[in-house]
C-alpha cells in the first residue's frame, strides 16, 4: 500500500500548513477577544442611510 504514504505526505503537509496557520493566528492575537467579533459581524459598515440591520 505504498500509495498510503502519498496520502500521508499530502495530509500531513496540509495539517502542517494548518498548524502554522494556528500558531500564526494565536501569535497575532486573533483569539484574545472572543466577545467582540461575533457581535461585530452583525453590523455592516454601510453608510448611515442604507444602514439596515
Amino acid at each position, binding site marked *: 500500500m505504498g500509495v498510503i504514504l502519498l496520502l500521508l505526505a499530502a495530509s500531513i503537509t496540509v495539517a502542517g500548513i494548518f498548524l502554522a496557520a*494556528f500558531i500564526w493566528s494565536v501569535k497575532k492575537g486573533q483569539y484574545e477577544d472572543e466577545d467582540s467579533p461575533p457581535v461585530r459581524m*452583525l453590523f455592516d459598515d454601510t453608510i448611515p442611510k442604507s444602514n439596515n440591520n
Partner: protein
Amino acid sequence: MKKEAVHQKTTCYHCGEDCGKQIIMVEQKNFCCDGCKLVYQILNKGGLCDYYELTKNPGSSRKISVRKDKFLFLEDNKIKQSLITYSSETQTHVSFYLPQMHCSSCLWLLENLHRLDEHIVTSKVNFSRKEADIVFNHNKISLRNVAELLASIGYEPYISFKDIKKDKPHFDKSKLYKLGVAGFAFINIMLMSFPEYLGIDTKEQILVNMFRYLNLLLSLPVFFYSASEFYVSAWKSIRHKYLNIDAPIVLAVIVTFGRSVYEVVTGTGGGYFDSMSGIVFFMLIGRVLQDKTYEQLSFDRDYTSYFPIAVTRLNKQEEETVTLPDIKLDDTLLIHNEELIPADGILTRGTALIDYSFVTGESLPVKKEMGEIVYAGGKQIGSNIEILVIKEVAQSYLTKLWNRDESKSTDSKKQHSFVNLIARYFTWIVFSIAAIAAIYWSFNDPSKIWNSVTAVMIIACPCALLLSNTFTNGNVLRILGRNKFYLRSATTIESIANANHIVFDKTGTLTSGSYHDIEYVGKPLPLAYKRKLAILTSHSIHPLSKALASYFGSAVHEDVIGYTEWPGHGIEGIVEGDLVSLGSRKFILDDNDVLDETAVYFSIEEQYYGKFIFRNQYRHNVLMLISQLRKSYSLSLLSGDNAGERQFLTGMFGKHASVLFHQKPNDKLEVIKQMQTNGDHVIMLGDGLNDAGALKQADVGIAVSDNSNNFTPASDAIIEADQLPKLAKFIRLCKINKRVVMLSFIISILYNIIGIYFSVQGTLSPMIAAILMPASSLSILLVTFGSSTYFARRMGLV
C-alpha cells in the same frame, strides 16, 4: 419611600432606570435625567440612534454628571505621553478603559465614533478587556476632547494612576502553541500507530518502519516543547524539596519517551508515542481550561488603580497638573470637590469634609480643620481645599498598608493542595510496585525486568489525577464565573472549600453603603415643614442631606436665604421665612451626650423639633445568607463604622460570633492573623481599601463589588454584590469540587490497576496503553464535567 411606590414607573429611554417623579420628555421619549437626555440628543444629531434599536435602553445612568474640566490633566504632556500608545505627526493612538461597556449597542456606538467627530479616524473595541483603541487627529482635537466626547455619550474613561505604568494584562500564549503542536502531533501519531494495532501485516514492513520513524519524528516537538510546561513545575517543586503532582508525570513521560525511542531504534516495537503525546495533549487542555482568565477584572489592583493619575499642584499660586509619582514633600495640592486625596498631608486652607467610607469603612464624612492631618485615600466633599504634602504617595499610611505582606505567593498555597499530597503517596506506591516487579522478575526471568519496570512507570503516571483535577477546576471556575463569582485561580477553589471561618466587613459589604432606612423621631411633622427641610437639604452635598432630600421626595428648587454649611456640624438657612437648622446633636441641642447612632437633629426657628435616625440599608437577602452560614461556620464582623447597629448585627450573627466596630484597617488585619494562629482558615469578605490588608492576610480574600468594573482591592476572588446571597452555594460547590476530583481519581485508579496488571507481567502492549489512555481520559472528562455540572444544576447555579 411610600410616595415613590405610588406613582407608576416610567423607565428612561437611555438607561432604562426609573425616571422618578420629574420625567424629562424629548420627542415622546422619557429620560430620567438631563445627562441621559443629553446623550440621546448628541447621538440623535450624529444619526446614531440605531444605538437604541440594537438593544433596549443600552445606556448607563448619567445622574452623576462628570465634573467639568475633570479631564484637564489630559492637557499635561507628560500624562499624554504615558497614555498614548503611538503618535505620528498627525495621528495619535490611545486606548481607554471604558467600564460602562456592556452590550452590542456599546460596541456599535464606540466603533462609530468617527460619525460624531470626523477627526476621530477609527475606534476598535476589545469587549473582553472593555477597552477602546482610538485613533484621532491630534491637530484637530486633543486627547482631552476625545475623553470628554466619550464621557458625553456616557462612556467616561476610567483613567487611574496605574495607567502610567504600562502593564496590560496579556495572557500567556505559549500554552496555546504547545496545545496546538501537541494536538497536531497527537492526531497524526495516532493515525500512524493504529495500523500496527489494526494488524498491518508483515508484508508491509517498509510501511511499518516508515510509520514508526515518522511517529518518533512527530513526538519530538511534543516531548521537547509541549511537555516543557510540566518539566519546569516539576523541577521547581523538587528544588523546593517537595514532590508535586508534575514530578511523577514528568517521570512517566520521560520513561515512556525513552522506552519508545529504544523500541523503534532497535526495531522491537512501535513504542508508546501515541499514549505519550495524547496524555500531554489532554493535560495541556486541562491546564488551559483551568487557567481561564477574566480579562475585564484584575485581582491585584493596588492603590494605584484607585488613585487619580494626576492632581493639581499650586506652585506659587500657579495651578499645574502633576502626576502622582512627582508629588514631592512640601508640595501644596489643590483638591477639588469629589476628588481623592493622593498623599498624607496637612490641611492648609478650607475646611475639609472627607469621606473615608471606602478607606476606613466609616460611613460618615469626617470633618478636618486647618492644620489637621488628612490621610490619603479620602474623598473631599464640598469646597476646594489645599493640603501640604507631608508624605509622598508611596509612603502614605494606607499605601503602605496595601503594599504590605507581598510574600504570600500563590504557589506556596498550591503546595498544600491535596492533589499533590495524593500524588506523592501515589508515586511511592508506584515505585514500590515497580521495585517488587523488578525483584520478582530478577529471580524468574531477568529479561523482563526492564520491560515490566518501565511499563509500570508508564501506566502509573498520575496524569489521570491531574486531568480530573484540572478539568473539574476548569468547569467549577466556569460555573462560578457564570454566576459572577470570579476566582483568581483554581487553587482558590480548594482554599474556599477548606475554610471554616468567615469574616465580613459591614459598610459596602453587608450594606449597600448608602443610608436609606430613615426613621423620624419627634413632634409630628406638618407637610409645610417637610417642604422646608426638603428645600434646605437639597442645597447640601453631604451624604446625609442627600439621603434626607431623596427621603422627602423630589427636590423643590427654591432659594434659601443665608444658607450656611458648617462642615461637620450642620446646615442652616432661612427657608420661606423660617430659619431652619439641621445637623448634629451638638449643633442643634448644644449638648455633648453622644448616643452611638447616626442621627440628624433639626430645629425650626431655634426650636427643636425632632431627629432623623439613619440606618444602613442591608443588601438584599444577606440575613438569609448569614443565617445559612451560621450553621456550619464561625462568623465574625469587622466594621470600621460606629456601633450604631450592634444589637441588630449581633442578632444577625448570633452570640458566638465576634462583632467588632471602630476597626482600623490594621486592626482588621491583626484580627485575621489572630484567627489564623488559632488554626482557623479564614475567608474575608470586604469591599474597601480598609479591608485590603485583611483580604490579603485571609486565606481567601473575597472582594465585593457593586460593579466589577470599578475598583476592588486586591483579593483572591471578586463577587458581584447582588450575587452575595448565593455565597453559601458557591462554597458548597467548591467543596463538591474536591469530591468530584476524588471520584474521578478513583475511577482512573481502576484503569491504572488494569494497566499495572499487564505491566508487571511485562506484557503491556502499546495497544493496551493506547486503549487505556483515551479511555481513562475520556471517562474522567465525562465524570468531572458531568458531576460538577450536575451538582451545580441542583443548586440552581447553571
